[in-house]
C-alpha cells in the first residue's frame, strides 16, 4: 500500500500494517518518538493495535535531547 509518511510518498510491502510494523520496517527504533496518524496522536501502548491503511497520513517525529 501507499501512505504519506512525513510529507513523502511511502510504498509499504503489505496492506493494513500496524504502527509497530511500520516503525520496525522503517527502522524507526529511536526511544522517544511522537506518532500522529491522520492528524491524531497515537500513544505508545496503541502502536501494536493501530492499523494504518492505504492513503493514510503518518507522521513519525524523533525527539532528541538537547536545547
Amino acid at each position, binding site marked *: 500500500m501507499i501512505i504519506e509518511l512525513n510529507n513523502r510518498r511511502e510504498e509499504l510491502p503489505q496492506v493494513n500494517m500496524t504502527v509497530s510494523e511500520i516503525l520496525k520496517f522503517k527502522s524507526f527504533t529511536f*526511544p522517544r518518538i511522537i506518532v*500522529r496518524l491522520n*492528524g491524531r496522536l497515537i500513544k505508545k501502548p496503541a502502536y501494536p493495535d493501530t492499523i494504518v491503511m492505504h492513503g493514510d497520513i503518518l507522521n513519525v*517525529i*524523533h*525527539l*532528541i*535531547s*538537547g*536545547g
Partner: protein
Amino acid sequence: MLNLENPILKNGELELYLIIVKFSEIQTILSSKTVGIAGAGGLGSNCAAALVRCGLGRLIIADFDLVEEGNLNRQFYFRDQIGHTKVEALRDNLQRINPELKLTIHNLQLNTHNIPKIFAGVDVLVEAFDQADQKEMLIETALNLWPETPLVVGSGMAGFGNTLALVVKKYDKLYICGDEKEEIGPDNPPLAPRVGIVSHMQADVVLEILIKAYGLRIRLRNK
C-alpha cells in the same frame, strides 16, 4: 502603509507585499499576540529574546532551573546571573530589550497537571526543553489539549557543523525545528551556534504563523 484590516490576498501581489512590509507593521501585529515558551534554556531564552526584539506583546515562560556557569556557552544569560532563577534572569534581560513587554514567569517544573492552566489561550506554544522525555510529555499534552494551537518544537541540535541538516518540518500545526538526529552527550555538547540557529528557527516559525494569520503571506521555505 499596508492596511492590516483588509489584507491583500490576491496571488502575485503577495510577495511584493512581503518585501514592503515595514518593521512597524510587524510590530503592530505582534504587539497583540501571546506566545508560551516551555523551558528557558538554550532554546527558550534565545527564542524569547528574538521574539521580543521583533515586538511580541506578551510572553509566558516557565522553567525551574537556576543559571549555571555551564549554561553560558549557549543560553541568554550572563556571568553575574549565575545562581539566579532562569525565569527571573530572563525577565531582567528581556526587559532591557523592551520594558513594555507583558511577561508572565513561572518558576516551576512543567507537568501534565500545570501545563493546561499555564499555557491556556496562547496564540503559539514553543517547546524548548532539554530532555527528550520532557519534550514528549509537553507535545503529547499540548496536542491533546489544544489541537488547533500551533506548536513549535526543537529536536536535534548538539555539536557543531552540518548546519544544512537543520530544517523546519511542518505537519499541520506541528512544526519540528532541528536535525532530529544530533543528541547531546559528553562528546557532543550543545553549543551556541547550532542551539542559537534552532532557537531562532523556532522564533522565525512563530513570526511566520502570527503574521500569516493576519493575511500577509510569506515566502515559504522550499517553495
